[in-house]
């Protein structure tokens, strides 16, 4: 079957099998930053934004994504223009093996669009669905709090929820 969706701001028209999960189809189309860790929605390594909401792409049928906007880690930032969240993870030494990092960055993006000034507890709740065997979660939590501070200082996000990044994500699809 064919699906039509918006992926990282560009229109995509992909072939897939009716039973295929979104993770597989994204990876097959070169979006390899979407990681496979459990395929049961328990690890968050495959998280993407679907119309701005974080979802584990291993629990979404590719067919269900048709007509929606997907943001993967590749759509968040690039070498030339890394996102403040990505830089915060780098600078906090929150990236060890890095396999959970794309999912954590996606989750953080969804969180900060909703809650620009999260409490540490809210950050921990956000990351609780992203098991990380390397870091003990301390530095990732620090990274999310630092990213929130950076984005607030830049005025990219505010408590009014007026967020140009999120608006871009919502406007597609």
């Amino acid at each position, binding site marked *: 079957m064919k699906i039509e969706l918006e992926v990282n701001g560009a229109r995509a028209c992909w072939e897939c*099998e009716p039973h295929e999960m979104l993770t597989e189809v994204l990876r097959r189309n070169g979006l390899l930053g979407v990681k496979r860790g459990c395929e049961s929605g328990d690890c968050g390594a495959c998280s993407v934004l679907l119309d701005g909401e974080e979802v584990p792409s291993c629990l979404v049928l590719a067919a269900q994504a048709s007509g929606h906007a997907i943001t993967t880690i590749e759509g968040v930032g690039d070498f030339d223009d890394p996102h403040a969240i990505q830089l915060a993870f780098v600078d906090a030494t929150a990236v060890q093996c890095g396999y959970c990092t794309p999912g954590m960055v996606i989750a953080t993006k969804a969180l900060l669009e909703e809650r620009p000034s999260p409490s540490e507890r809210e950050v921990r709740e956000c990351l609780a669905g992203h098991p990380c*065997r390397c870091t003990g979660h301390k530095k990732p939590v620090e990274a999310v709090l630092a990213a929130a501070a950076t984005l607030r200082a830049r005025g990219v996000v505010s408590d009014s929820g007026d967020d140009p990044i999120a608006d871009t994500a919502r406007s597609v699809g």
Partner: protein
Amino acid sequence: MNDVQKKAGDLACAGAPRSEDEWDTGQGSLDVPDGYTAVNKSPRRLDALKLALGKGTYADDLELDGVLFVKVLWSPHAHARIVSIDTTEAEKVPGVRCVLHHGNVPRVAYTTAGQGHPEPSPYDSFMFDAKVRFVGDRVACVAADSERAAAIAVSKIKVEYDVLPAIFDPRAAFAEGAVQIHDEPEAVGLPGYDKTRNIAAAMHVDHGDVDGAFARADLVLEREYSVPYQAHCCLEPHSALTWLDEDNRLVVRVATQVPFHSRRILARLLGIPLQRIRVIKPRIGGGFGGKQEVLLEDLPAMVTLRTGRPARLVLTRAEELTSSRTRHPQLLRWKTGVMRDGRILAQELDVLANTGAYGAHALTVQSCTAGKTLPLYRAEAHRFLMKAVYTNLPVAGAFRGYGGPQGFVALESHMDELAGLLGLDPVQFRRMNVVGPGEDNPLAQALGEGKEGPPQRFRSCAIQDCIDQGMAAIDWSRRATLPKEGPIKRGMGMTCLMHGSGIPGVDMGSARLKLNEDGSFNLHVGATDIGTGSDTILAQIAAEALQVPVEKLIVYSSDTDHTPFDKGAYASSTTFITGVSVKKAADGVVRQLLDAAVVMWAHHGDPCPREGLFVKAGAVHRPDGKSLGYDAICLSTFYSHDQHQIMDHGSHMTFECPPPFAAHFAEVEVDTETGGVKVLRYVAAVDCGVPIHPKSAEGQTEGGIGQMLGYALSEDFTFDPGGKLLSDSFRHYKQFSALDMPELQTILVKSFEPAGPFGAKSVSEIPADGPGPTILNAIADAIGIRIRELPITPEKVRKAWLEKQAGGAK
């Protein structure tokens, strides 16, 4: 030049490198030098941005045209002979290209333990065997054009089994009349191996007059402890891709900690020359010992050799948990003889370990259970008894800590209990018995890696500082007044720990370094960054010796065709062993830079003697203030004068194994009505020598604690009566999440190890040793009950509490 610069220059320049003898004996000052320019700093890790952008390519992140998907048929029985395998229906599934099973592959006995040659683990495994030994053992595999076709074909393989009695209790494994799990004639092991009694490894070591010392002791305490299976839970599952390159060589791209061991073992298993195999380690999504195993790459490799097509095998999470490797469960009996004044006379440790269906690391993990624990406190005499037995349960193997975490549960619980019996403060009791700098490790020789080890002396040892700084951080003085009224009670516990740095006399690492025209360097190392940060740490060591910014290093690691040998990422060895090889290569490059500068200045008509030259800020400097940049020197050596490539390599092996030391502290809250334990605060003070990248050293410590708080409190393997693992998903195997973690503080205590690169020793495994016993001690302080079994589930705490209330338990 100010003093700091001079010191840094001296460290790096040609006159300063230490002789081979100095490295090997670890002689030298214990002072911490200042003025480092690249080490003991925390620059951005070289791969961090790439990974945060999602651009890191792991084993499975490569698209190959015509790739075959491999799926494995796993045993549904704990113990059975395969009477027949019928693959007719499976082969009819459209897209199926190859089916492998014991009837059509070479039968080569080997061990999956990815250790150095010769491996000290028993050769008791085969690519496929006519017998299965646990639920989840290999039966056959299918390669097909799609994953779905492979999975359908696997379900159509018809296997007739002759089911055998199974052993699930290690205590029953070596009993008279027990079924023999390895009855194949090929299975062999080191002395102590006795497959007729299901004994995969055994040891008996006596040091000193053990019985005499116990007889003289004022008090002898003997206790038993039990520790469970643990799963590594690397977020990236075991994955391997294989293909034939244009020269018909086999390329193996695999999530491994041991690319060179993988190549060596694959050549034997597949029956092809080693030179026809190239193993590439891409980015790795965590290892923790689980990827020290040559676990799955033989299957896609065999498929590729049979079909000529690329092949891919990636385990599912359930397969990971069931069929990969685990931490050895152990039953431990610890006995200590002490004098009334608190002086320890004798220690005895008896371990019964369950190695599961195969003996990977059975000898060496258990040997380390003693090797990491028994030497921590001074005693006249020691005894170590060990049996590692086969059962029909999941296979144990290497796991961060490598036997240490099991042993410290017993030792450090025991130390607290002894202090209580002697009426001594548990911290003071430890302080008076713990080893110090300059003392010998009396057990080093007896507990070598499957053979006699080299003698060891503790040089850098800041354990007393670790205790001081940890106590201050958690405010240990509060312990006496923590609330004990009401159903929710608080307590504090502490432990002392030591580990090792590499395998002395065995582990070797090497590095190659070459200069480019812009003053950058290619650093090629066999060392395997599995998320540890070793690419960055080794670049920092090179940068320090070369006196360039770390960004000037281009690191390429772990490719058997293009990097020199390394033992692999295990045994806390990379910084300590490979780091020195990098330092040696860089020192050699510095010598060549100075030689080339002398030649250049002579050609410029401005000669100068070599003496007095030094390197700083990417240039060779002379005492009169003139300098030549590395870029200009490289251009000159490429195109103008004394033309050659400035390049050197270094290899390092040492008989030294300096232990890092640590003191861990925890504050817990125990709810006596539910049995729930909440960890409130955790402090780890660690002496890892000079941390090369302090933020990464903290990360290793915090990650190790997170992993092992799960081991202490929540992670457990549960089986159905037939030996099938029930906790085979992240939902049923509970790790500590961001919400479960306590307030966590890491203290890197000042210390300098003369045998390590720029004063460093290891840091990656020691944190795993602490959480189990630290939490047990904190719980004992909170509720006055000594639990001796992990994981400390609410059921166990509640039951113990009720028994205490009923007066049934102490």
